[in-house]
């Protein structure tokens, strides 16, 4: 038994029953979680492990920097496009390429579409089953469900008792078939599920409606990027040329018909978010509003780089429509500026990660990062190297590195952005937060620092993003009307025009949080490529001082109803929307080291 007080304010006690969840499902990628639960059912120790590693950056070494977006886009197909956008920004920063205004508007619409899509799919298809019990929905009275629907979202047209009865019948036959599909082996008798049957039926109905609707949200990207998942991008702008009324406009990437299509999608997206997603968050939130576990470090240490440049080519916080900055030690009165280029600010550590540094007592800035896989397990590990029963968190235990901002573990994501925006007095964000807290029955701002707060912030951000698509669509059309049809700056597209050696950095706010890529280009090829991604921040293991990361912190002191049924663990981990494929492949400039490891 060990009791450890972490520098970031948590008391870890590993004496209770060890509960292992592997795989953690309904996430992107692969993850494991272990906790110790005391005799009263409270989590007293938490260990989160990234369980996959691909090494994408070493693959990038020696490639054409103009191609990098396509490689890094494959870091993640759920936040598809955000890595590509970060990549083209990094290359443009290195080569000092300015993009046209239209390209900025189109990229913003694509990125905002992703925010809405990712948040919506996350809530309904990855997260809802932590709060919603589809089996309980079978007990609902369709009339009561209809009344609830009309009361919570009067403008949503699908609200009749007959409609809900049909869905319930379909669900009933599905369950009675004995082939439960994705609902199989859920924890449906666990008292942690608290919704009344009519709310469960409404939510399951919206699970299906959202599954039908989500595919439409991303069609903006099919128009601008040719396909989705994984649309196409371009260093210097966007590939979709505009031809409004010239010869052959019908076969051009962007013409009046294409713009009308996008415009319609944007309107329907706003409608769906405002009449389904937001009301559901309020309806479900009202019932769980006293379940305020899961805050972790969200009230203490949060970070955002900012995104959605209003004017093209200006990435200063003043021009970014999503908030940027850092809050530490829980002091909301001071938002610190963040500089991704400053070697003192962002550093990554590996004492508890399956990588080797020459000196593991030091952190490295991404410009100078090294990644050499080093899969070793601590002496107290139970099981074997290829059949782990229990990890030893005093040693290395994750494929995720531990990034720190000025030494602090940080939480990133929609909640971090919303708290930073609130602290800065961002008008739209403040209004949204206030009206939500009031709709939930007058909760204090501190209620945001919770699992539910993370889930609510994500929904509010989806609403904000849906509306901002309209802003950039209007801007795009106004600019074309003013006579500017330009979509790409190809002045420096030819590598022969580049300097011998340059470096750059690009950043975005991915759906899951602050994302940055650092690139070095030498002799027209990628010399080094580094990504520090949101789930690297949130899913970070311990560091050398013993600070626990955001996932781990969020699980601490949570009461679980049944230790063997990890509903509460899933609920809180899912509130971060973990993306493990993103988090686990940082590689250093010393790519050759890998060969040594490979050939054992």
């Amino acid at each position, binding site marked *: 038994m060990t009791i450890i007080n972490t520098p970031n304010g948590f008391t870890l006690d590993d004496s209770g029953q060890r509960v292992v969840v592997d795989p953690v499902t309904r996430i992107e990628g692969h993850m494991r979680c272990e906790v110790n639960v005391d005799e009263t059912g409270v989590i007293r120790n938490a260990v989160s492990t990234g369980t996959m590693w*691909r090494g994408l950056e070493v693959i990038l070494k020696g490639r054409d920097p103009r191609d990098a977006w396509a490689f890094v886009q494959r870091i993640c197909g759920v936040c598809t496009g955000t890595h590509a956008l970060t990549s083209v920004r990094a290359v443009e920063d290195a080569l000092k390429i300015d993009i046209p205004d239209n390209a900025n508007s189109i990229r913003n619409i694509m990125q905002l579409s992703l925010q809405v899509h990712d948040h919506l799919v996350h809530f309904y298809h990855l997260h809802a089953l932590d709060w919603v019990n589809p089996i309980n929905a079978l007990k609902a009275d369709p009339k009561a469900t209809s009344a609830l629907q009309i009361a919570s979202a009067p403008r949503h047209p699908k609200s009749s008792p007959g409609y809900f009865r049909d869905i319930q019948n379909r669900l009933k036959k599905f369950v009675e078939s004995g082939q439960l599909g994705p609902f199989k082996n859920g924890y449906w008798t666990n008292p942690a599920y608290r919704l009344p049957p009519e709310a469960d039926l409404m939510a399951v109905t919206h699970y299906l409606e959202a599954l039908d609707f989500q595919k439409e949200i991303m069609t903006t990207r099919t128009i601008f990027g*040719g396909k989705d998942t994984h649309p196409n991008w371009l260093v210097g702008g966007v590939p979709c040329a505009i031809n409004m009324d010239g010869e052959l406009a019908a076969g051009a990437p962007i013409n009046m018909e294409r713009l009308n299509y996008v415009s319609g999608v944007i309107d329907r997206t706003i409608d769906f978010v405002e009449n389904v997603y937001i009301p559901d968050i309020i309806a479900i939130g009202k019932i769980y509003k006293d379940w305020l576990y899961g805050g972790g470090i969200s009230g203490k240490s949060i970070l955002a780089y900012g995104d959605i440049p209003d004017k093209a080519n200006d990435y200063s916080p003043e021009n970014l429509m999503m908030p940027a900055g850092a809050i530490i030690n829980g002091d909301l009165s001071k938002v610190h500026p963040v500089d991704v280029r400053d070697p003192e600010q962002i550093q990554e550590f590996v004492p508890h990660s399956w990588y080797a540094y020459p000196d593991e007592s030091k952190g490295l800035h991404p410009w100078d990062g090294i990644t050499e896989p080093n899969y070793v397990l601590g002496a107290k590990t139970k099981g074997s190297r290829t059949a782990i029963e229990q990890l030893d968190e005093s040693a290395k235990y994750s494929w995720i590195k531990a990034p720190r901002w000025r030494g602090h573990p940080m939480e990133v994501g929609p909640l971090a952005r919303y708290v930073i925006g609130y602290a800065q007095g961002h008008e739209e964000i403040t209004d949204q937060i206030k009206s939500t807290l009031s709709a939930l029955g007058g909760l204090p701002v501190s209620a945001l620092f919770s699992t539910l707060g993370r889930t609510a912030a994500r929904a509010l951000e989806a609403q904000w993003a849906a509306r901002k698509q309209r802003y950039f669509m209007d801007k795009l059309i106004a600019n074309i009307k003013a006579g500017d049809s330009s979509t790409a700056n190809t002045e420096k597209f030819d590598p022969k025009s580049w300097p011998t050696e340059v470096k750059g950095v690009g950043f975005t706010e991915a759906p899951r949080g602050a994302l940055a890529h650092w690139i070095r280009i030498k002799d027209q090829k990628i010399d080094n490529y580094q990504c520090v991604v949101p789930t690297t921040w949130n899913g970070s293991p311990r560091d050398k001082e013993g600070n626990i990361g955001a996932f781990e912190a969020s699980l601490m002191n949570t009461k679980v109803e049944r230790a063997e049924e990890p509903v509460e663990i899933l609920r809180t981990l899912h509130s971060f929307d973990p993306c493990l494929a993103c988090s686990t492949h940082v590689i250093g400039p010393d790519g050759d080291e890998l060969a040594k490891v490979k050939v054992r």
Partner: protein
Amino acid sequence: MHETFYDVMRRQGITRRSFLKFCSLTAASLGLAPSFAPQIANAMETKPRIPVLWLHGLECTCCSESFIRSAHPLAKDVILSMISLDYDDTIMAAAGKEAEAIIEETIKKYDGNYILAVEGNPPLDQEGMSCIIAGRPFVEQLKHAANHCKAIISWGSCASWGCVQAARPNPTRATPVHKVPGIASKPIIKVPGCPPIAEVMTAVITYMLTFERLPSLDRQGRPKMFYSQRIHDKCYRRPHFDAGQFVEAFDDEGARKGYCLYKVGCKGPTTYNACSTVRWNGGLSFPIQAGHPCIGCSEDGFWDKGGFYDRLTDIHGFGIEADADEIGGTAAMIVGGAAAAHAAVSAIQRARSSSSASTSAKTEAEPRAEGGDN
């Protein structure tokens, strides 16, 4: 009790007439004659849902994301009414040991009768532990589930070829499903693409359910119905290629007129996929229509065939003396060579050049379409 797709539709209040219309649309989306509609209807009316275990290895989940974007049929209807998606860690409610128990239960109950769908691939280096499921190497889970399945669907370029994590130098020795040492000898249907087109994914499933057989496969194991033509063959910009009208730089006059993207790197001439016919996201568009050259994402090793903006002729090793394996098939090489020659002369001798190129393409492509696995 087993419910069928038809039962479910009827219970939803859908009329028989609408149901039959759905069957005709399904037939049409599969490129089948209207006479196939009754067969589809019969299948949908009488069959219980087939269990599917959908495993995830090293991947980015783009295949799952593509799958849920299917317009016809809707992903909702596939999951609720056509298959029984008993294991898919991306959407399943269960986690940890309850999730893993499903695999054992399925093997016990449906030994030899379930479909194994694989997204991603296993790494073999780091003792397989750079992809861990339930404390063990993913490759063990994969091989175990493969031992007892009826057939394997290799979703996407990861499972089919290796894709991005297997690109040079493949730091984890990520290995496509059919090359995993000791993998059970089961039929493997490769549905490559990064990701594959949603409607292609759902059509492959619907075909198997409807006709109770695996689709005919080409020599590389891909369904002929979607992978026997190159993007270039049916590209709407093909007439500009034949006319020698090319985009010379992005956003130039040619780009705005929708000219051919061959000179800015389009891999359409060597890429076998249905993008220019089925198109993406309900037939809305495809990369070339949106102004970007095809990057060839459904081809084996497409990451290592040179830059995406380099013309095909510039690809390292691309020429008559090239090693066939390096290029990914003899046909691709010869067709590509023909396409390059074709592009060069087409402006002056468009008619003759065009017909000779397409003849040579046809002759060379044919052997690829023969001799499928079943």
